[in-house]
């Protein structure tokens, strides 16, 4: 979809000729306001819409930009245009400083983040009012000369805002179409799963916040001179953030152009009412519009329009279509998906990279230890889930983890994959101790996992769910290449027909296979499977067992938690039995299961 940036720029260039029409200054001002709101709403959306961290502090950064410019103009007599990058810089610095602290705190999400940012607005506003920056009387800029960019003064502001809006829309589109944007959307849907999949969530949130604030600051800089008299009371209120939220939610927060649509709609609406001398009613109507939008169109106008015009399901960027299943277009249909790998699939799976690690790991030397866990402890609020676990996982094997409910098997997987942090102990993977490493780095090191209850990214397509894993765990940086590889993995697991579907359209069996495809797409050397077979019918279990075998044949080492005994007997090289957070027994499946202490643990009393 590389046309889009040209369309945006083209529209910007075209609209630049509007002042030549010689419209009354009023229209310039109206259009200026519309464009300014486009900048504010779109920039807000880059953090809040894409990641779901709804900020109510956008007014603070807009205000920071306003006051940076007004101070530089009034006090230091800078040329106006030079104040704009400064305004952006100050706002961005403020945002990044705030984010650096706030994003580190685990509990700050959702409503808490919203209130925090709102509080920041009032704090900054109060500081500004009480210091020489504003001093309570505001700052007058009437003496400052307005640069001659357009034929009239008001058209100058229009053109500046147009430039800012074009730039902002380009940035918003570029992010949405990039790997960075894919990560942001993943954070929105399931931050923990994204982190475990390899998305550097802290860094990404901070970057998005910084960009968002910079653009708001720049808009503020322009607005300062437009107002020509700046007061803090107008700026540091709840009005700006709430309006911005309204516009974005109305237009659609998932799409880069959604906030712009909302901004145009709301500004036009308010204008219509103000012009007709019903400003008050205009407020009521916009309130009513917001209510209707929340109740009936919670995803916004744009997605609804896309749906009507059949522009395809929601995908990573909201615009692109998935690549077709294969170049030669053969229908895989009802044939067993595991029988003959499709040429494309074979190509991917036998590519040099894959072949390299496949051959490297197919040592067939059982003593080569891939993962060594010693003394692993994990407690939750006084309950000891893992009480000192020692286990070795050998390269190329399939190790089964068994044990009654509550014995610590899932906790083990959660700790090794980084979902939880161990209280004590070491987890040495290929020579590196990963025990207290961030989850996304563990994913990068070559470990991936599935969840017992599948956790797909609900608002991305099946294809994009897998593509995300390729982008972040598999070291691929190009979206298109990632999608191609993802398609190959979907074929490997038999889900290729569902590539453009949303996860909630899949049944449980398909969702589990999606989890598997996601886990594999990052080309891990160790795959952790958490009760993958739970809830499947016997024939589905057979399919899954065959698939797991093929995964091992590709060269991955597999550790899986399972209760379905026949799968355990059929697949595992060795098993480890957990009991009350400790390892009870380890060894060949047939041997271990006959041991009296294991039988007691399972059935509760010694068996003859």
């Amino acid at each position, binding site marked *: 979809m590389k046309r889009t940036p040209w369309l945006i720029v083209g529209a910007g260039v075209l609209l630049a000729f509007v002042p030549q029409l010689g419209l009354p200054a009023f229209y310039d001002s109206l259009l200026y306001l519309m464009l300014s709101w486009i900048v504010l709403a779109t920039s807000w959306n880059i953090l809040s819409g894409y990641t779901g961290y709804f900020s109510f502090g956008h007014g603070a950064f807009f205000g920071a930009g306003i006051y940076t410019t007004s101070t530089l103009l009034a006090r230091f007599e800078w040329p106006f245009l030079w104040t704009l990058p400064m305004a952006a810089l100050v706002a961005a610095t403020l945002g990044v400083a705030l984010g650096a602290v706030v994003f580190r705190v685990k509990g700050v999400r959702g409503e808490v983040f919203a209130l925090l940012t709102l509080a920041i607005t009032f704090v900054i506003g109060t500081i500004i009012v009480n210091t020489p920056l504003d001093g309570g009387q505001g700052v007058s800029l009437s003496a400052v000369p307005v640069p001659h960019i357009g034929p009239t003064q008001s058209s100058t502001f229009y053109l500046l805002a147009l430039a800012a809006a074009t730039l902002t829309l380009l940035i918003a589109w570029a992010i949405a179409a990039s790997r960075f944007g894919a990560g942001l959307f993943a954070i929105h849907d399931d931050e923990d799963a994204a982190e475990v999949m390899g998305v550097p969530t802290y860094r990404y949130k901070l970057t998005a916040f910084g960009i968002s604030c910079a653009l708001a600051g720049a808009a503020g800089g322009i607005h300062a001179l437009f107002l020509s008299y700046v007061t803090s009371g107008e700026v540091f209120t709840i009005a700006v953030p709430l309006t911005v939220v309204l516009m974005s939610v109305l237009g659609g927060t998932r799409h880069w152009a959604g906030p712009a649509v909302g901004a145009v709609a709301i500004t036009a609406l308010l204008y219509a009412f103000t012009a007709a001398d019903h400003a008050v009613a205009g407020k009521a109507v916009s309130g009513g519009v917001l209510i209707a939008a929340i109740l009936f169109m919670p995803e916004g106008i744009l997605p609804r329009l896309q749906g009507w015009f059949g522009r395809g399901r929601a995908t990573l960027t909201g615009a692109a279509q998935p690549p077709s299943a294969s170049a030669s277009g053969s229908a895989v249909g009802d044939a067993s998906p595991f029988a003959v790998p499709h040429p494309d699939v074979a190509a991917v799976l036998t590519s040099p990279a894959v072949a390299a690690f496949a051959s490297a790991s197919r040592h067939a030397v059982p003593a080569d230890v891939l993962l060594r866990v010693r003394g692993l402890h994990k407690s939750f609020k006084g*309950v000891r889930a893992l009480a000192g676990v020692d286990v070795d996982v050998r390269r190329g094997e399939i190790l089964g983890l068994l044990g*009654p*409910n*509550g014995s610590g098997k899932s906790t083990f997987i959660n700790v090794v994959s980084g979902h939880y942090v161990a209280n004590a102990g070491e987890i040495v993977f290929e020579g590196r101790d990963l025990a207290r490493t961030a989850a996304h780095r563990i994913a990068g090191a070559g470990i991936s996992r599935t969840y017992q209850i599948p956790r797909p990214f609900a608002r991305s397509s099946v294809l994009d769910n897998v593509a995300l894993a390729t982008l972040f765990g598999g070291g691929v940086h190009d979206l298109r290449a990632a999608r191609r590889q993802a398609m190959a993995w979907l074929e490997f697991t038999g889900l290729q027909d569902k590539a453009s579907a949303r996860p*909630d359209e*899949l*049944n*449980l069996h398909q969702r589990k296979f999606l989890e598997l495809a996601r886990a594999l797409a990052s080309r891990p050397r160790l795959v952790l499977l958490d*009760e993958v*077979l*739970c*809830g499947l*019918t*016997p024939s589905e279990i057979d399919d899954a067992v065959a698939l797991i075998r093929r995964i091992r044949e590709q060269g991955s080492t597999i550790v899986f938690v399972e*209760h*379905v*005994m*026949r799968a*355990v*007997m059929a697949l595992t090289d060795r098993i480890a039995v957990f009991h*009350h957070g400790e390892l009870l027994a380890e060894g060949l*499946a*047939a041997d271990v*299961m*006959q041991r009296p202490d294991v*039988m007691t643990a*399972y*059935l*509760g*009393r010694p068996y003859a």
Partner: protein
Amino acid sequence: MHESGMAPAARAAGDILLEVRDLRVAYGAAPALWGVSLDVRAGELLCVVGPNGAGKTTLINTLAGLLRAGGGQMTFDGRDITQLAPHRFCAMGIAIVPEGRRLFTRMSVRENLELGSYLPAAKAYRTRSLDAALALFPALEEKLPQLAGELSGGQQQMVAVARALMARPRLLLLDEPSLGLSPLIVVDVFAAIRRINADGVSVLLVEQNVAMAMAVSSRAYVLEEGRIVAAGTPDDLLARPEIQRAYLGVRDDA
């Protein structure tokens, strides 16, 4: 009226109290129960065993009204309860001890027990029920003012059972009462369950710990992958290869 203050069985022992026919329940998008039929007779203590993922919790939650049945029929005391609103199950005489206890952790033990007797019919007997519960679990007496979330797993299980008893149920449902508890506590809990049943309360319990469940029950069902695959007395079932295979994966022949 029994000494313990528990509600007497409304039906003569042996009559069918709960009748489940062809129950179909979907959990989310996935079907979890594929036509389950079972009976609970008045005064019985019976168990449903099966591996993880078999649908045991889905079954019990549906019987307690926490989940909606997608098809089939449930009849309690002669009345069709299949489409009954969730909050009316308790008034019918069904109380649940849920999986993982699910106590109100931010409320005291006493308040949890009082919640159990929220309904007017149970509230009238609140003091007597509380005395009976403490007689069953003496260790709870000193824990009454403490927050439920601060108790150990075993103590929480006791509170959960006591809470359900405060509702003066005719049918007590227990979902994996042994979960996460050490073996000694499990013995205590099951002893308590036996006493409750001896006082006339019918009990349906769902368990992964086959031995304990079979030891206390008079009848059992085996649930596997959403279907009842076997039914009978504990001795019959334990001898059967299904159980051995389901839980140990080894054949009795070798």
